[in-house]
């Protein structure tokens, strides 16, 4: 008798469960998320000023000097500005050439011009000068040097010759690239 009651209650419970579980209804909604991934970058600008100031109060950029004489001290102030978002390590290289009136050209040592290299902020290694600090957006390095001195003892062989003193600047990212400029990898020529 009790079994029958239990059976009956079980049937009712089962049917109720069917009603509750079986009448769920649903509808769907969807939408699109446009997710964007971007990369940053680094870019630099080489600035070559002089110690002369223009009427606008800004330093006058370096231009070619003509008729320089032995012993002349020329103002040439190379610096580097970070013009992109990414922090950068900086290095510079200086090369010198002499072009003779007969068209011949030779590479010479830049040391000949007695450059007043800033050895506090720039570290020399493997022909490059490495800037000791990280350069963030819009920051400018200290000048690598400020003056170029034409040697007093310039021999007659250089009469009428043209000297070129070229400065190159390179940059590489700071992010994920060592703890200082000397540890950095991925320089443009590597």
């Amino acid at each position, binding site marked *: *008798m009790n079994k*029958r*009651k239990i*059976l*009956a*209650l079980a*049937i*009712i419970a*089962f*049917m*109720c469960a*069917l*009603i*509750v579980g*079986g*009448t*769920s*209804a*649903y*509808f*769907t*909604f*969807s*939408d*699109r*998320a*446009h*997710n*964007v*991934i*971007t*990369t*940053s*970058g*680094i870019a630099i600008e080489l600035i070559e000023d002089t110690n002369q100031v223009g009427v606008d109060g800004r330093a006058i950029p370096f231009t070619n000097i003509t008729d320089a004489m032995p012993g002349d001290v020329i103002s040439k102030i190379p610096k580097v500005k970070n013009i992109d*978002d*990414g922090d950068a390590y900086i290095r510079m290289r200086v090369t010198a050439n002499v072009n003779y009136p007969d068209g011949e050209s030779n590479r010479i040592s830049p040391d000949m011009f007695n450059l007043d290299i800033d050895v506090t902020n720039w570290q020399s290694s493997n022909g490059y000068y490495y800037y000791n600090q990280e350069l963030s957006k819009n920051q400018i390095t200290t000048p690598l040097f400020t003056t170029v001195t034409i040697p007093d003892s310039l021999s007659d062989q250089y009469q009428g010759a043209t000297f070129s003193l070229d400065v190159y600047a390179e940059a590489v*990212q700071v*992010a*994920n*690239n060592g703890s200082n400029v000397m540890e950095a990898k*991925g320089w443009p020529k590597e």
Partner: protein
Amino acid sequence: MKHFAKITAALLLSLILSTPTSALRSSVYFLGQADQFVFHPGTSWSDTDLFDGFEGAMPGDSLTEEINIRNASNDCDYVKIYLKAAKHENHSEVQESVLEKENIASMEDFLSQLSMKVTSNGEVIYEASPDQLDGLANYVLLGTYNPGDSSTLNVTLNIPIELGNKYMHRVGEVDWIFMAECYVNEEIVEPDNPDTPVTPDEPSGEPKPLPNPNNAKTLDEIFKFVGIFIASMIGISLAVLVIRRTLQKEEK
């Protein structure tokens, strides 16, 4: 002892508060049948951008984005939320801001250089370069959510250190489609505008028929519900009869 416990609690709190975290947090809210999905925070590239932490990446970066998925609806008893990725078949599916810098081919070339992993509830549901659909080629169930419930999607993006200058200042769009199934007991939820035909991939946000034929609410399903109801009534009637007979026999 009580004093010690307070100090310990304070120390623990300060440790927790000072723990640094590199992961950023975006959110996907399902607001219900009227407002549907809302994406936060959005960026200057797209209002629905969930990857705000993946801007300005540099070679060697490993970036993480936590995406909070929340059922913020109050007109569904519970919802099931699914996710799938979508390929860009034509330019109309790409944000205009992105197309100013890239076309689909250049974008996919850029994205193919990267690697991305997505985990949901500790399970990896995607691991490929973001130009691929991988495990999100079809809808993946992220979870079943009662009102107020939430879960977290963890997205990790790796930029190879060897990425060259060609990939400076590049932009790539990764589209994800979220779908919610809103369940309401003993009541069929009708779409606002049932005559409007929509496809599952359209970013319309309008209520739409189920994308999977196996899930589709059809006449068969309605008949099934009616059948269950009739069976239930018959079952209850039979049960009542059995009980009454039993009671009558007991009285005799």
